[in-house]
């Protein structure tokens, strides 16, 4: 068994459980924001921009981005790791899922920052 890991698998799984549970709460807030006004009007440009200017909601959105990216890409990592068991595949999957997580968080954060500044 290989031992040179940054995180033990048990630590990764604890992160997976915690991000999953925490994401439920923040996603619920995100959905509620679409339901406290009529749904159609909740998607209007001005309303969305006002959401982005609310610092509390910005925090919620950033949390969703981080929590769901980590939880989702770790999930896909687990599924793909189970499909093949050779070193090249495992290393490739690990690198790609970490990169995808960082890339998605970065892209989403860019949207939040730019929308907040508009």
């Amino acid at each position, binding site marked *: *068994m290989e031992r040179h890991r940054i995180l*033990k*698998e*048990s630590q*990764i*799984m*604890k992160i997976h459980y915690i991000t999953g549970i925490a994401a439920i709460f923040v996603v619920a807030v995100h959905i509620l924001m679409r339901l406290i006004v009529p749904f159609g009007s909740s998607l209007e440009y001005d309303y969305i921009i006002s959401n982005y200017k609310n610092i509390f909601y910005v925090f919620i959105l950033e949390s969703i981005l981080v929590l769901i990216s980590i939880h989702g890409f770790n999930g896909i990592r*687990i599924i793909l*790791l*189970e*499909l093949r*068991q050779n070193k090249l595949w*495992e290393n490739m999957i690990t690198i790609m899922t970490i990169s995808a997580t960082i890339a998605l968080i970065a892209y989403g954060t860019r949207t939040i920052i730019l929308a907040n500044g508009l």
Partner: protein
Amino acid sequence: MNNSNKNNNNEKKIVLKIFRENTAQKTDSHYDTFNVPYKKWTTVLDALLHVKSYMDPSVAIRYSCRMASCGSCGMKINGIPRLACYTKISELETSTIECGPLPNLPVIRDLVTDFSRFFNHHKNIQPYIQSKDGVDDPDTEKKTFSFYQSPEDVDKYLQFSYCIKCGLCYSACPTVGTDLKFPGPQALSQLYRYFADTRDAAKNRLDIVDDRHGIWRCHFAGSCSKVCPKGIDPALGIQLLRSYMLGISKNEKKLAKKIEIQTDEENI
């Protein structure tokens, strides 16, 4: 059985399809079909042995005790891993029975599969009690001792000790279907059997399976417990083990007390 065939002597017959393949001779796999007589109590193993005795002696099957004690006759019967000796034809409620090799284990010939990988996973979890030897134990000057285990201590691991290593749980597991490095439900529940045993003082047991292909690849699909013929419930053992690994278990493991055994010859 509404769809059974009857001959002139009112003997019921069932259609038995047996998987045939010889990996050593690289023959193509196919199913051979046989019409086998059966009674209310006839098991699938009885039917297979009837085929071997009177129809086609070349059918390869593994069996031994015929009473769900040895675990040799595990095979896929109508899509689900079962023990052939423990499955009555009448309880299957079908007009055709399809017998195939246990899934997720390499086929040697016909219904016989290679258990090496399965046994290796079991060996890797160190399936034996590791305790301090009384001779080296500084706590006692006596050379012999016995462990004190209450009935409650025994109940914590007893059900998992009934494993007959039939391989049905390993075959049913969805993770084993794709992941060769995953130990499988049998090895993981046996690891829990030794971990929960108060006589065992091994410190590194949990580290053996704290791996990206270890216990964390169990997702509680429960198929292992569904097919286990001995009621071991490997899924329970695995989740209880996981709770220890997450540091959330409600049971704190206490090691068994050692009781001196009087070996003084004057007392004999």
